Every structure is written in C-alpha cells, then in structure tokens.
C-alpha cells in the first residue's frame, strides 16, 4: 500500500519508514510559526516549567502581524516584549510588521515541499499550497518550542481532484466553497484535504494558499496541494533550493484515501459564505438582495497580488458605491510594493478604496470594526457573530472579485458580468 503526502511527511519527521492512519506518533516540526498574539505567553508558560532555551531556535519564526501599526499601549508593550524575547531566545526568523504570517513564510522561501510546520495560528494550513503539511496547534506550540516535538494522530486524507479551469469571475475562493458544499465537518474532521488533478495547475501558489488555508474552516485538520512544476518554479523564484522531486513528495498512486471527490472548475459559479459560518454557502447570484455597507479585501488567504489585480480589474474606471467603505490590505509588504509598481493601488484609491498596511487586523475585529446592523462582505477567513465587532453585525465571505463587484453596487453581486468586461477591456 502506498502512502499519502501526509503519511510521507509524518513518517520522515517521526523517524519512521512508514506510518499508519490512526496511529499516534511524536513528530519533529521543521518550522514553527508564532505570531506576536501568543509568542510571549508561550515563553512565559514554558519558563514556568523550567525551560530556559528553545529546542530548535533556528526552526522558529516569530511574526508581528496582528496589530500593525500598533494602536494600543498594551500592543506596544506586547511588541516590545516580543522583540526582546525573540532576541533573548535566539529565534531564527523574526518579522516585524512586514506581512501576515502564512503568506510571508511562503514568500520568504521558508517553506519547502515535504516540510512539516506547526503553527500557533488557525490558518497555518495555507502553507499546504507548496506541498507542506502545516497544522494549527494553538497553545500546544509552546510544547514544540520547549521540546521540538508534538504528538499527532496520523490523519486520513480526503482527495479532491480538480479538473478544467475556472471561467472569468470565478476564483479560488469559489473552489474551496464548492468543496465545503460537498464535505461537511463530520466528514472533514481529523482529516487532511489534499488537492490534486490537472485543474490544480491552473492555480497560482497564492491561489493554492486560499484553497489550503480555508480547509480549516471546512473543518479539516489541514489542507495540502500536490507539488507540480508551477509550484517548483514559484519556489525557485523565492529562493527555495534543493527541492525534492515531486514524486517523492506527492501521494503514491496506490495511496489509501478516506474518500475522493471531483470538482469540474469550469462548472463553478461565484459563491458566498453567509453568517454564521464559512460553510453556509450560497450562490452569489441568489444573494443580490443583501445590502452591504462595508467591503474588505485582504487576509492571509486573500491578500495576494492576484487578489488585488482581480479586484482592480473590476474597479478600474468605476467607483465604490457612496454608501460603502472598501478597505484593501495587501497581505505582505512585498505584495504592497508590487501593487504600487503595477499601479493597482492608484486605481483602487481612485475608485474610492482605503489602503492599509499589511496586517491581520480586520479579520478578528482588531481594526475597522462593525457596529450593530451593519454588514460587510469580506475575503477574510471567518464570519462568526462578533468576529468583526458587534454580535449584531453580519459578515459575508467571498472572493476578491465578488467583494469588488459588491462594493460598486452596494449589495452582494455576482462579479461575472464585471469580470467579463474587465477581460474584454484588457485585450
């Protein structure tokens, strides 16, 4: 019996030839990511049990990304402490306000196919875009910092085979929302969702971050994408050398899956997650009665240059509706600079958008809060009541194109008509 990508990764990092689904192993993560939200709390806790140094400081990345620029004295104190601790504990990779953890790790070339990463943040699975297994562990990251190890129950894999290509106006977000419609959380729980198939090659690495990062909101343990030439080329351009051959990383032909689903990308339509949960999915077209006051493009899963290009293409020469606030946040400073160079931020601000520095901010209600009765359409990760401020505000989740089109009209809008004219204008 062959092995899945996940089994191969967990076998290697637990020093084993092979691992079986369901067995408990101790694995050694190759990369540990912790944002400023919790890093100092973890250090405080491991100090209490007598730990004085990190097991593998060179594998640890600490990132200030949730409150950027800082806007509270408590935050300033936390950041000061985080900087100090990162130095004292010899943290290998420290990033201070230059982007959101998950896209930053990929962009900085810190993630290679076949790696096992342990993340403090819920959306760590985004690293699966480049064939790494990245699992959110929350406070358990403190144990990885202290011991270099974490226990894992080897998860089964659900295979999602992608076929064809998305039509104009349909985005990576719509692929993951279509996946959620087929797989409820009873099915996905404790399992990894693995994307493969020829349709995967139509997606860029940042688009793969969208579909892998949101697997956690589909209820899965993680998401991972098979490695192909497009992934290898992207990583080479980002300084990742010594990549293993894809056949060593990817699942074997005779690997065992819990189940397989097939998605024909050419049949997909724009979709929206309605409150109170990301997996409450509806057709964007059917939601046009929903009036919105706020629109947001950004987050670890949808703040890439592709997201910003797709929004700018729709907003080019148009105006954000007078009753709508559109906020755009490039996920990293590199994306910010790229968008500046391409003139995208000029176009977006001309249309009426507000641009903010790279941060997780709005996703958890850190900035740009909503009050009772307000609605936002957003490319961020979650729409639980209270997530962006008031419990009586409503959050709808969709692709950057759907958010851009909705910002123009002031109600939830299927972006296909706009996307088609944007394509026509470009040719």
């Amino acid at each position, binding site marked *: 019996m062959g092995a899945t990508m996940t089994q191969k990764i967990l076998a290697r990092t637990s020093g084993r030839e092979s691992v079986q689904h369901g067995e408990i192993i101790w694995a050694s993560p190759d990369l540990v990511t912790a944002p400023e939200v919790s890093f100092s709390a973890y250090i405080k806790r491991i100090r209490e049990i007598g730990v004085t140094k990190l097991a593998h400081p060179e594998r640890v990345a600490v990132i200030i990304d949730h409150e950027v620029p800082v806007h509270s004295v408590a935050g300033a104190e936390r950041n000061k402490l985080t900087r100090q601790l990162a130095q004292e504990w010899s943290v290998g990779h420290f990033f201070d306000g230059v982007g959101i953890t998950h896209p930053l790790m990929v962009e900085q070339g810190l993630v290679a196919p076949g790696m096992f990463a342990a993340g403090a943040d819920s959306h760590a699975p985004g690293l699966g875009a480049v064939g790494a297994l990245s699992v959110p562990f929350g*406070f*358990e990251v403190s144990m990885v910092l202290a011991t270099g190890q974490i226990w894992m129950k080897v998860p089964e894999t659900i295979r999602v085979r992608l076929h064809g290509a998305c039509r104009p106006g349909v985005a990576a977000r719509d692929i993951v929302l279509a996946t959620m419609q087929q797989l409820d*959380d*009873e099915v996905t729980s404790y399992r990894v969702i693995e994307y493969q198939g020829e349709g995967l090659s139509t997606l860029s690495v940042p688009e793969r971050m969208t579909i892998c990062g949101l697997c956690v909101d589909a209820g899965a*343990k993680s998401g991972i994408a098979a490695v192909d030439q497009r992934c290898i080329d992207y990583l080479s351009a980002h300084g990742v050398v010594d990549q293993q051959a894809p056949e060593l990383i990817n699942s074997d032909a005779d690997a065992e899956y819990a189940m397989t689903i097939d998605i024909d990308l050419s049949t997909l339509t724009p979709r929206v997650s309605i409150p109170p949960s990301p997996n409450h999915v509806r057709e964007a077209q059917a939601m046009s009665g929903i009036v919105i006051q706020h629109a947001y493009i950004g987050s670890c899963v949808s703040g890439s240059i592709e997201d910003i290009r797709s929004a700018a293409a729709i907003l080019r020469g148009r105006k954000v509706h007078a009753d709508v606030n559109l906020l755009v946040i490039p996920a990293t400073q590199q994306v910010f600079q790229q968008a500046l160079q391409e003139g995208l931020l000029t176009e977006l601000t001309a249309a009426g958008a507000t641009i903010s520095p790279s941060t997780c901010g709005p996703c958890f*209600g850190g900035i740009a809060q909503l009050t009772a009765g307000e609605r936002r359409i957003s490319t961020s990760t979650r729409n639980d*009541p209270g997530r962006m401020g008031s419990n009586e505000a409503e959050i709808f989740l969709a692709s950057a194109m759907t958010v851009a089109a909705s910002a123009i009209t002031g109600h939830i809008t299927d972006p296909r008509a706009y996307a088609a004219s944007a394509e026509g204008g470009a040719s």
Partner: protein
Amino acid sequence: MSAVGKSTSGRAWKFSSDISSDQLISARHVFEFDPRMLRHHLLAEVRPEFAQQAQPGDVIVAGRNFAHGSNHSHPFLAMKALGVGLLVRSLSRGPFRLAIFMGVPVLMAGSDVLDAIDDGDQLEIDFSRGAIFNATSGKQMQVEPLAPFLQDIVNAGGGLEFVKSQLVS
C-alpha cells in the same frame, strides 16, 4: 497509568450543537492569555451567568461540533481555570487537542446519553472509566473513556506538565 476511580461531581450546563470557538470566547479577547481573566469571558455572550456561577466539578454538556472554527486556546485556558469538564457529542480536532493539552477532562457521548441529561442536573463523572451518573434522575450511563495516552496527559495537568519530567531530567 491513569488515575482510576476518581469521580468529579457538579452541575450540568447544557448547550446546543455547533457552539463555535468564537462563541465560547469572543475573538476580541485574542490577546488575553491570563486564565484568571479569561474565566470571566467563557460563554459570556451565550450565557452570561455561566462564568459567574460555574464551580469546579461542573460539566459543560453540548452537542456536536463543539468549539468549531478558530483554533483558539482561550476557551480551554478558561475551562481549566474554572475546573470544569466537557461532555460533548463531538469536538473537532483542534479544540479536542487543546482541551487535552490544557488538562481539561473530556468525554464524548452519543445522543442517548446527552438526551438523558438536563440543564442543572447533578452529575457524577468518572472520566477515567467513562462512567456517568445522573444523580438528579438516578440514571447510570457508560461511554468510551479517552485513550490511556490522552488520559495520562490530562491527569498530569496538561501537556507541558506531562513533558516536564523529561525536560527537567
């Protein structure tokens, strides 16, 4: 080995299915890691009296998909601080791990067991054996206990206490 025969006794606090992590503790408390503060926020927006009245030995009884969504540690730091246990139909993987890691006793139960418990019932639970006695109704019930490996972590007081001996030695 796991502690055997150690029962806890307390009140059942009953909740529905699909209580999300953000409902347990709002994401706006994401920067707070002090359990003494977090205990006041647990379920504050769903049922405000819970955090004020819950006593050590009490049990949160909930349906399926408990604590889904954000993989936040905060609700489990708060449960540990309050000394409450968990009896749920299902718990997704992230929160399940965090409960064990924080040393919160957990049992999974079918709807037959959960339906036989009303809010406010007095429960005596032996988590190591999976034995549940509803003292209010007089009904004795049995569920599958946690695997011994996981019980060892909970009984040590959580993941860091569990590995402490090997770290210090």
